[in-house]
């Protein structure tokens, strides 16, 4: 089928890509644009590995048509660190500090889901953190270290230690 040129706004950069209507966002992000931080797991909307932020909210890249994402602001894991210095976001650092990463496949989705939560909620409870991450499957860490990493970040931010 004939391809058409669309513009996607990813991490505040505009990318022109040629797609068909059938092309799925996660595939375009990984294979056409080359941002491979976003992972593709089940492809069925269950595992959350493909989570990206669209206009600040976590959505599933495996269930989005790329063509339908024109005019929206997409954030992938590559857009979370400081764009100038490359320094990791304190939430990312907290994941590292707490050993909340094992194989790492779920981590981009975990970071983006939790970033959307901490961006919109000043002081999320453990229950809110758990509910938010129910759609991000991790088969290594058992989630405890992930929850601790997020809670530690929220606490440090509340105390003004990090942004």
């Amino acid at each position, binding site marked *: *089928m004939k391809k058409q040129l669309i513009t996607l706004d990813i991490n505040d950069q505009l990318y022109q890509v040629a797609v*068909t*209507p*059938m*092309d*799925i966002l996660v*595939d375009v992000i990984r*294979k056409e644009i080359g941002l491979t931080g976003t992972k593709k797991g089940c*492809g*069925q*909307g*269950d595992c*959350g590995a493909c*989570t990206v932020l669209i206009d600040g*909210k*976590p*959505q*599933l890249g495996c*269930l*989005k*048509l790329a*063509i*339908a994402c024109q005019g929206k602001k997409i954030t992938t894991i590559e857009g979370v660190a400081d764009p100038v210095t490359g320094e990791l976001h304190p939430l990312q650092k907290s994941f590292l500090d707490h050993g909340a990463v094992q194989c790492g496949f779920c981590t981009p989705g975990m970071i983006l*889901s939790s970033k959307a939560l901490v961006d919109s909620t000043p002081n999320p409870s453990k229950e809110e953190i758990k*509910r*938010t*991450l*129910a*759609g*991000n499957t991790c088969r290594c860490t058992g989630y405890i270290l992930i929850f601790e990493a997020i809670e530690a970040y929220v606490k440090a931010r509340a105390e003004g230690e990090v942004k």
Partner: protein
Amino acid sequence: MNILNEFEYYAPKTKSEALELVKSLGSSAKVLAGGTDLIIMMKEKMIKPEAIIDISNLDELKGIVCKDGQGAEIGACTTIAEIEFSKDLEKKYSALTYAAGELGSNQVRVMATIGGNCCHSSPAAETPTPLSALGAKVVISGLAGERELPMEDFIQGNRKNDLQPGEIVSKFILPEPAKKSACRYGYIGLRNAMEIDAVNMAVNITLEDDGTKIKDVKLVMGSVSPRPLVSELIPGLLKGTELTEELIVKAGEAAQSEAKPITDVRASAEYRRDVVGALARRLVKEAYEAAKEA
């Protein structure tokens, strides 16, 4: 990297443009809102539409309007997450906001819409059950105009509904809750998160002015019938009574006698029937107690 069938993509800018497209493309087209059911069905090759009409950007179909004393209107393309977190809706229709919060995952709730959840017409869907119990009407739009149907009449079977060619669902109208009334929703699945309900249920109870006798009651069951099942026995059993433990037990039995559960991957028919009894007893009691406090 294409695993979807080939289709043309249309993104109408207005509702009337969308209705023109839905009319002219007919049954070869599917309407896309959140995509959390539609895209999966396309990936599974359960459907192969020749055209996709994306209505997710139509502001005319979005939003929640709650008016004091005059119920509420919810646009069909309002996301489940917006409903889950709407303080205005929670005040009047907590059964609906609770059910919305129990649908899928956070990401799914951000994407999925209430119109999509109803139009997909899965027997296990979360929102049609409380919408039916709350007396919601579905507003269906076509080029010729609008028509309204009670929620429970809109869904006609497993993935079947009353939408005619050329029509889309545009909004839901919820009546103002009666004085001294309360609606409660509950469900049982295999686990808390990311499950599909084995049984869900909503019970709406209105009390007489005396605050003890039941004036009106509506019990709706989901996932135990091809469509939302409104109990016919419960009103006859409970209207005019003051709820007792004995009546609660009888209400459970009445709901069980009407449910038509099947055995599938999520639960056996036998288990579902037990759950219907348990949920009916629990929700009738909870709704009655809450109506007393209302």
